[in-house]
């Protein structure tokens, strides 16, 4: 399958759900996340010829989406309330089913992680991307990705352990 034969519509339909979920969890604002997702897909449409290996479409789209998020975060660095660690969950409740019990608490624990750590953990554990794919998508060195995943997972495991003991 050549790059020219990559069907953008199929790509969009197959990945819009995870890209939007990823951005929603990063931004904690459903409307902003959807705007960034739209921007990411428009960029993907423009640069479709750059996608040489259709199997790498997922990490390629995550790379574009993460760059869109990072660019927005840099531009609006003063608007700390959108990106600051520890800010309350501000997701659109109508589109996100309310988590219960442990799921709600792990969501809170994840939301308390720095956005960069949250992003790499989601890419690796939620979406099954390899460390090297995560490094490519996030633009972070492989070592940093591994340490982010290790430390973030340890925090979540500790959280789970405490939860189970309680």
């Amino acid at each position, binding site marked *: 399958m050549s790059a020219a034969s990559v069907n953008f519509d199929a790509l*969009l339909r197959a990945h*819009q*759900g995870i890209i939007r979920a*990823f951005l929603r969890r990063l931004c904690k604002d459903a409307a902003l996340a959807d705007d960034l997702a*739209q921007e990411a897909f428009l960029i993907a449409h423009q640069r479709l010829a750059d996608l040489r290996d259709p199997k790498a479409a997922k990490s390629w789209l995550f790379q574009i989406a993460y760059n869109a998020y990072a660019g927005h975060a840099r531009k609006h660095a003063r608007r700390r309330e959108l990106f600051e660690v520890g800010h309350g969950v501000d997701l659109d409740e109508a*589109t996100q089913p309310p988590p219960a019990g442990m*799921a709600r608490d792990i969501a809170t624990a994840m939301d308390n992680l720095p956005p960069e750590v949250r992003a790499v953990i989601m890419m690796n*554990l939620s979406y099954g991307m390899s460390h090297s794919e995560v490094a490519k998508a996030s633009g972070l060195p492989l070592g940093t990705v591994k340490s982010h995943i290790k430390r973030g997972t340890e925090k979540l*495991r500790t959280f789970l352990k405490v939860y189970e003991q309680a």
Partner: protein
Amino acid sequence: MMMENDPMDENLKVLLADYAAPVPDDGFAAAVKTEIAKRKRLRRSLILGSGTIGALIAALQLPALFGWAQGLPKTSILPNDVARSVEPSMLSTITDSLTWGSISPIMMGAAIFGLICLWWAGEAALEAL
């Protein structure tokens, strides 16, 4: 290697999969496709617009180009006796016309340069879209 065969880690994976569960489409894909179509139309309009402006600029230079072409001598070098018979007052008229004539290629060059700038600006604008 972390996350191997540990029930707690498996549990964590499941919880994280739920945490980042895909969002239903809800018309998102259609909105993206509409936006793409809108931008394509805008792109076409920009190309057509800049092409028209470029053609107008080029067309405005045509009379000057024809004027310059008509003012060119039939032979490239005047015979010596003709050159000697030219009076100084006529000479200034000739040099003036040559100066005016020589502006036309400069103007043409400027117009081409302007077109290149317009094309470059259009490309940059489209990249920014």
